[in-house]
């Protein structure tokens, strides 16, 4: 044996050992709770980072010897979901606590990624303070609850007071039907050249914003359960309401009442609406969410302290003004514990810390979120904390939640595709609607019902 052989052998063994170490355990510490959350892709927006750093400090002080490790994921929504799902697939990478969108939570529950929280919730006094509808946001078909909501959101019409003044429209504008919205937009188009009369998010690039802020805000004003039929547990196809909603979208873009189609289908358009078009008075009416002011606050990146004087708010009317007269959709995010988490008990303790009345209130205000705790919702200090909070909180009783069943993400994509067809003019309303019907038949294994 040549003297080099043992050396080689040793090298090979060391290399092999190193390799196996790569796949080894990442070393879970029973005293550390790993918290994953969605970090804003806008470097100047640090709302969540600041809040969690504060809670971490409180938690470590209240629980000596315990540590919190924050694991931010910097990505746009859709990519954040994907990354999180991949992390939750294995106990080696699963965090102890994750921030889950209600849009996807049922889908993830079905996949077995999340732990039911009922045993913890039973022992948690504050749970009684949560509003009933919000409790059901993360309740699965098996009747168990998988997430604690950290606020919700509602949606309505934002409008520019200065553009309305130029167009001769009232400063306290409140449309009673879809037609009145379109009429206002037509008036702006005629009298105020150079501005975009109205924005309705549309198409695949806008993603869930198109489905929820656009289509569903229209669809839920056309009748009961327009998307999913809870009695038969089936998805609705072929409804007139769906076609009427598409017709509205088509009208906005065909009559050039909306943004230029190429802008509307630009993936970065939503950012421009908030950071550019609204602050610069270039957009008349914007169908959008309650959270917009979080970008305009102090230190948020696009400071615009005078927004509350420049913008008016109106609730979205039903199609022809039928009862209840207003429409809003609500989503929101929850804190959930992965089934592969190594320290679930500690993770729930962290939720409790985050959701005390004082902390929850701090978070709702910082995040322009709508309170889901009764005691906060009734607190005058909260309602006065930010202009618009009262308006959007008052929409909670009449708001709708998405039918966020496991098939929902695919249904949502089908909605966006149908909207995009009528926006670009590639297809008629009927073609787009029948395309949607066949898409959701495929996505839901034929669990559909004609309405």
């Amino acid at each position, binding site marked *: *044996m040549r003297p080099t052989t043992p050396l*080689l052998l040793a*090298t*090979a063994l060391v290399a092999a050992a190193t390799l196996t170490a790569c796949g080894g355990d990442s070393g879970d510490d029973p005293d550390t709770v790993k918290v994953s959350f969605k970090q804003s892709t806008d470097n100047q927006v640090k709302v969540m980072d600041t809040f969690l750093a504060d809670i971490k400090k409180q938690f470590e002080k209240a629980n000596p010897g315990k540590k919190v490790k924050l694991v931010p994921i910097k990505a746009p929504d859709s990519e954040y979901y994907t990354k999180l799902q991949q992390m939750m697939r294995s106990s080696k990478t699963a965090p102890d606590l994750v921030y889950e969108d209600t849009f996807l939570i049922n889908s993830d529950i*079905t996949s077995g990624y999340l732990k039911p929280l009922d045993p913890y919730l039973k022992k948690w006094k504050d749970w009684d303070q949560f509003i009933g509808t919000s409790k059901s946001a993360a309740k699965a078909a098996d009747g168990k609850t998988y997430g604690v909501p950290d606020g919700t959101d509602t949606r309505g019409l934002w409008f520019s007071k200065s553009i309305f003044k130029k167009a001769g429209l009232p400063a306290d504008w409140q449309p009673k039907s879809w037609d009145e919205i379109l009429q206002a937009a037509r008036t702006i188009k005629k009298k105020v050249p150079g501005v975009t009369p109205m924005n309705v998010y549309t198409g695949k690039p806008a993603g869930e914003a198109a489905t929820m802020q656009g289509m569903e805000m229209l669809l839920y004003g056309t009748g009961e359960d327009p998307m999913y039929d809870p009695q038969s547990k089936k998805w609705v196809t072929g409804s007139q309401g769906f076609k009427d909603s598409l017709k509205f979208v088509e009208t906005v873009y065909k009559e050039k009442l909306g943004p230029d189609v*190429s802008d509307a289908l630009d993936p970065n358009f939503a950012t421009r609406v908030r950071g550019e078009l609204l602050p610069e008075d270039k957009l008349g009416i914007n169908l959008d969410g309650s959270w917009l002011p979080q970008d305009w606050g102090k230190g948020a990146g696009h400071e615009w302290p005078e927004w509350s004087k420049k913008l008016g708010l109106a609730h979205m009317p039903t199609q022809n003004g039928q009862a209840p007269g207003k429409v809003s959709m609500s989503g929101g995010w929850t804190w959930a514990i992965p089934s592969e988490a190594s320290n679930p008990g500690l993770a729930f303790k962290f939720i409790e810390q985050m959701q005390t009345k004082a902390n929850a209130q701090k978070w709702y205000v910082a995040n322009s979120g709508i309170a889901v705790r009764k005691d906060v919702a009734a607190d005058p200090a909260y309602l006065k904390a930010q202009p618009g909070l009262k308006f959007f909180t008052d929409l909670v009783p009449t708001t709708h939640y998405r039918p966020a069943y*496991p098939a929902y993400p695919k249904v949502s994509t089908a909605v966006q595709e149908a909207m995009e067809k009528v926006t670009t003019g*590639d297809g008629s309303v009927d073609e787009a609607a029948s395309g949607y019907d066949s898409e959701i038949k495929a996505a839901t294994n034929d669990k559909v019902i004609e309405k």
Partner: protein
Amino acid sequence: MAKTAPGPGAPRPARPPSRRKPTGRALSRALPVSPAVVLLLLFLAGPIGYCAYIAFTDLQLTGQAESSFVGFDNFRKAFGDEAFLNAVWLTLVFTVVSSLIGQNTIGLALASLMQRASKPIRTITGAIVITAWVLPEVVAAFLLYAFFRREGTLNAVLDFLHLPPQNWMYTLPILAVSFANVWRGTAFSMLVYSAALNEIPKEITEAAEVDGAGGWRRMWHITLPMIRRSIGTNLMLNTLQTLSVFGLIWVMTRGGPGNRSQTLPLFMYEQAFQKSMIGYGTAVALLLLVVGSLFSLVYMRLLRTEV
């Protein structure tokens, strides 16, 4: 691994009589390579094999408790899926326009022009073209997005020249991203062809010139046949690179509007990660591999004939 080669410790230059020695030697020679082999098996062959397996299941990223083996369902689904066929078509358009026609011809043209240019011109042109190539894909994509968008640089220039504005990113998105890819990838072809043209002996071109062959004839009858191999290699590399372009298109158009610029890699991403159908997405990835190998086969055949 406790087996060691027995033998006298004294090293002798004579050939060993036994046949066990060489095996021992072969073993010890293979040893340094073994970590690399293990690594390759673990991190390259493993995932590829796993991918091939997933393509035959209905695995989803979310929304389903467990996955099962479904045989060729995913592939059947692909060929009945209009969006998939549209993606295949667009991939072909993108590859032919931006790689075969664009990068290749412009690269060759630049290389031949630079052969005759003065040194400073050559340096400046080379530097500009190569800069476009070394930019990270995402940076290049944002630049081109800013160039093509409606209020972008291109329209500002057109406006200055009193020409009508364009909106290709919306009207002809596949061409906009193809141009972007040409802009970004031409440098590679230019470098390959510069090297190839330098290999051509001067005497031959000079002789042809004396015989009265014009520029085009010299190109067609002398230059092209002589750099045939480089053309093949370049086409192959270019095509495979272009087939897998994702970031450039993603940043510029996200495959939109509609799905008018959704090439196969973007379609794959949409199915696997946005609609969570990992199984179907992986099957499409395998089909993309097939498209790539078909291109390669064609090139190989074209290159086989000897001059």
